[in-house]
């Protein structure tokens, strides 16, 4: 039951926020903040209890009949992976609310409603264990996000919002077809027509079908993540969205892509994913380097941060297709830390724009003098984003490298080169915006903003110094995902594909000895 509350509390809160629009301009924001705090504490409660109930597959589960005629059930379940991402969702959601406190002046009730509906959709997608339900939430989060960009965005919002919607929809519709094909393949083979994730995991199917279905699923998640050739919607959408929208987009929406790859693509289509891995590595490496290189070329600070997301999400793709314990742990840490650090960078960009009315980096400079707190926060997150040891992103990237290296040293080496580039652009932001001769005056962060930034910094530092709780949380999930410990690849002996249920990259255990 608690999962139903977790999904619906934001919806209820959003409606209340909409209704509270008449009570004053910041009333809706207070309502949203309160709602997200409640939802977050529920999630934290689950986290606290996670240790005890860890024997089963799920930490919490709820399954209700919904559309039995089509084999659809309302099945939500939470494991460590979902829990971490749901907690991130509410945390960043609250930060997004704070960041848009003064930015959104018109129709703040409706704004908060859409924000909360997006969050509800994302939460639902992280928890749905029925493919119909998953698709339902997957689509559901798009409309409010579209409205957020289209109504409260910047100059070029119309174009950006429609592009965002059409790109993601094109991928999703391919996935819809694939879900239905999977449904029928499973139904015909076993006689059980169901959209249940657990049932579909062991669908017997031919290799060609598996490969095509894998590609269709991959298309949907690759657009969201985004993977290199499908990323063109991202810079537009992130740049034109209002600050809160950018935070949600970069911090959460992209993570649904990574989540989908881990939860659906590889487990449902293990053989095909195994064969696809080299191509995924190639796309990931191109994305890492391409995103980093393009990030240099930007004068618009939001665009710059947007391209760094393309680069950082390359690590997620890399780690997922390495599919071993280390790499996947790295992916989870990377997703959480990227969510927080990029969210924070977008909030800083938004704060700059709100104060200076420009996003052009060349018009900024020497802001540290006027805004030391903002500068310090920016420095922390720029360092996090370049992967400084001691901050969370480093752990994520490092684990991904370790995991990937055992599978494909070439990919790991090339990706590490991308990390060098990230050091350059991260420091470049700090140098151009906060150092040098002071070009313009600025007001520093107030108490409200610091209230959002201090916890974000705390999370990044916590995960950088002591990531073990998060890794433990994920450990349970890793076992159910049938991941084996990463071991060096030795030709002929190490990696073998065996037929064993839904086991994924079966690295034969003998190789460990």
């Amino acid at each position, binding site marked *: 039951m608690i999962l139903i509350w977790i999904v619906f509390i934001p919806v209820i809160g959003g409606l209340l926020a909409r209704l509270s629009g008449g009570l004053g301009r910041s009333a809706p924001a207070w309502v949203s903040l309160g709602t997200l705090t409640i939802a977050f504490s529920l999630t934290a409660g689950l986290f606290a209890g996670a240790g005890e109930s860890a024997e089963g597959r799920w930490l919490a589960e709820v399954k209700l009949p*919904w*559309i039995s005629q089509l084999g659809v059930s309302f099945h939500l379940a939470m494991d460590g992976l979902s829990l971490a991402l749901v907690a991130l969702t509410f945390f960043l959601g609250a930060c997004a609310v704070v960041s848009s406190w003064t930015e959104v002046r018109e129709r703040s009730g409706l704004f908060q409603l859409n924000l909360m509906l997006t969050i509800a959709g994302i939460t639902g997608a992280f928890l749905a264990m029925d493919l119909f339900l998953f698709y339902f939430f997957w*689509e559901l989060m798009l409309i409010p996000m579209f*409205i957020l960009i289209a109504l409260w965005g910047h100059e070029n919002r119309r174009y950006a919002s429609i592009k965002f919607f*059409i790109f993601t*929809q*094109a991928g999703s519709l391919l996935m819809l077809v694939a879900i239905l094909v999977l449904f*029928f393949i499973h139904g015909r083979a076993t006689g059980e027509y169901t959209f249940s994730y657990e049932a579909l995991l062991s669908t017997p199917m031919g290799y060609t079908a598996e490969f095509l279905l894998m590609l269709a699923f991959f298309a949907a998640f690759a657009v969201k993540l985004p993977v290199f050739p499908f990323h063109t919607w991202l810079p537009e959408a992130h740049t034109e969205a209002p600050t809160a929208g950018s935070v949600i987009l970069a911090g959460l929406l992209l993570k649904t892509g990574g989540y989908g790859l881990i939860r659906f693509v590889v487990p449902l289509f293990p053989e095909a994913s195994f064969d696809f891995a080299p191509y995924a590595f190639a796309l990931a490496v191109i994305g890492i380097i391409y995103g980093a290189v393009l990030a240099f070329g930007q004068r618009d600070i939001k665009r710059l941060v947007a391209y760094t997301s393309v680069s950082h999400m390359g690590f997620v793709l890399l780690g997922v297709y390495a599919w071993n314990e280390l790499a996947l742990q790295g992916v989870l840490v990377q997703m959480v830390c990227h969510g927080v650090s990029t969210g924070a960078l977008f909030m800083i960009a938004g704060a700059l724009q709100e104060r200076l009315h420009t996003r052009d980096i060349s018009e900024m400079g020497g802001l540290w003098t006027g805004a030391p707190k903002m500068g310090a926060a920016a420095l922390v997150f720029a360092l996090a984003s370049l992967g400084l040891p001691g901050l969370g992103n480093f752990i994520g990237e490092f684990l991904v490298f370790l995991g990937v290296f055992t599978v494909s040293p070439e990919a790991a080496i090339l990706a590490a080169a991308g990390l060098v580039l990230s050091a350059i652009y991260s420091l470049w932001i700090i140098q151009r915006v906060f150092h040098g001769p002071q070009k313009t005056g600025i007001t520093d962060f107030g108490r409200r903003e610091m209230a959002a930034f201090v916890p974000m910094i705390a999370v990044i530092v916590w995960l950088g110094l002591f990531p073990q709780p998060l890794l433990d949380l994920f450990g349970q999930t890793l076992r159910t995902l049938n991941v084996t410990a990463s071991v060096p690849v030795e030709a002929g002996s190490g990696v073998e594909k065996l037929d064993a249920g839904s086991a994924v990259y079966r690295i034969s255990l003998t190789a460990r000895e």
Partner: protein
Amino acid sequence: MSPSELSALLPILITAAAASALTAAAGFYSKHGFVAGFTMAAFALSFASIFIAAPAAPIAVSSLLVVDGFALFFMGLIYAAAFAVALLSYGYNGGAGGKHTEYYILLLLSALGAAVLAGSRHFASFFLGLEILSVSLFGLAAYMRSPKGNEAGLKYLVLAGASSAFLVFGMALVYAATGSMEFSAASALATRGGGPLSLAGMALIVAGAGFKLAVVPFHGWTPDVYEGAPAPVGAFIASVSKGAVVAVLMRLMGGSLASGGPLFTFLAAVAVASMFAGNLLALFQENVKRVLAYSSIAHLGYLLVAFLASGSFAAGAVAFYLAAYFVSIIGAFGVVTVLSVNGSDVDSLESYRGLAWRRPLIGAVFTAMLLSLAGIPLTAGFVGKFYLVAAGAASSMWILVLSLALSSVIGFYYYLRIILVLFSPSPRELPAEAEVHPAGSAALMALFAVLVFMGVYPGPFLSLVGAAASGLWQ
């Protein structure tokens, strides 16, 4: 006629009686309120009588009509849609005052024609039903007697005439080949492949029906007629007249089309062309009614995907999708209706700028209807589209399914475009807008409720559809 036959025919009889009674009564008393109320009562009564007819079903009433679950389902859909259209029309025609008797008589008659089509199993009743439907419709299309309305009526008249000619000739050819006017003979023939004579006959019937369905390449009349006809009539043409023809085609040839056969290939090509042409042409329209017209072309293309798929699952998909489409398209036209006053429809896209802020409720309803047409979750259109793709995938019709997916991506653009216009800031100088009549708002709210219910909890409706579809080809 046995009592059970009589009770099975009750829905049709009530509508027919109501049309005659209204014609007779109109000579003495023709207040708008009375006439509209009478019409709505007749529709409600016909709808209610479906539940009386249901125990008798399935039953063949003479060799012309059959009343089974499928027919009753479509009759229910037709009467419910007609009721909504009548309610919308009441507000549209200016409330209690005025004289609009002919309008409602024609509405009753066209619903009667549609209901006959839903239950027809013989070429004679097919033709009869279709003629009752079309003759009343071109009267309705030209009802406002504006230049555009006249154009719409005339166009519809000419094309309805032409399509009937095709249809009758096709029926004659099939009759020549089989010696029977009953559908069962014709569909048996289609299953066997038939000779060139019957193939030509069926092709002509498909062409004739294609005009009514407004699928490419028979779609040319649609945008002009939708634009010229009064908005509620547009809703009726887009929903009821198409749904009834789909029902009769399902009975005539649905499920019996040999995959890969010439008719199947032809219809598949028609489906793909309709999806793409409808969606692409809608991109360039500045008139909401024209957008909806092209959108309806695309939607009939989607529908053909399930139509071509075989089995009762696909028949259920057709029925469900039609229901979802009925709700969304009537709702969308309903918004145009409630904003329009007598004779001059508010249909240019610009006049919708900022509507969501000026009239939040109507803006929200319109947004929901458009999202449903686009197939977004929480709306009936989503479940409908899901069902369609499922039917196509179950029959492994990959080209059709992928065309559906790709063309609906194109479709998002124009739906979103309207939504963006609805939500953009209001223009400085507001156009003169009519007060929304309560009847219109009531109809919209009801449609909205059904839309969301079907989207969130489609279970009961799916059972209904499944039961209706399972008996179709026994």
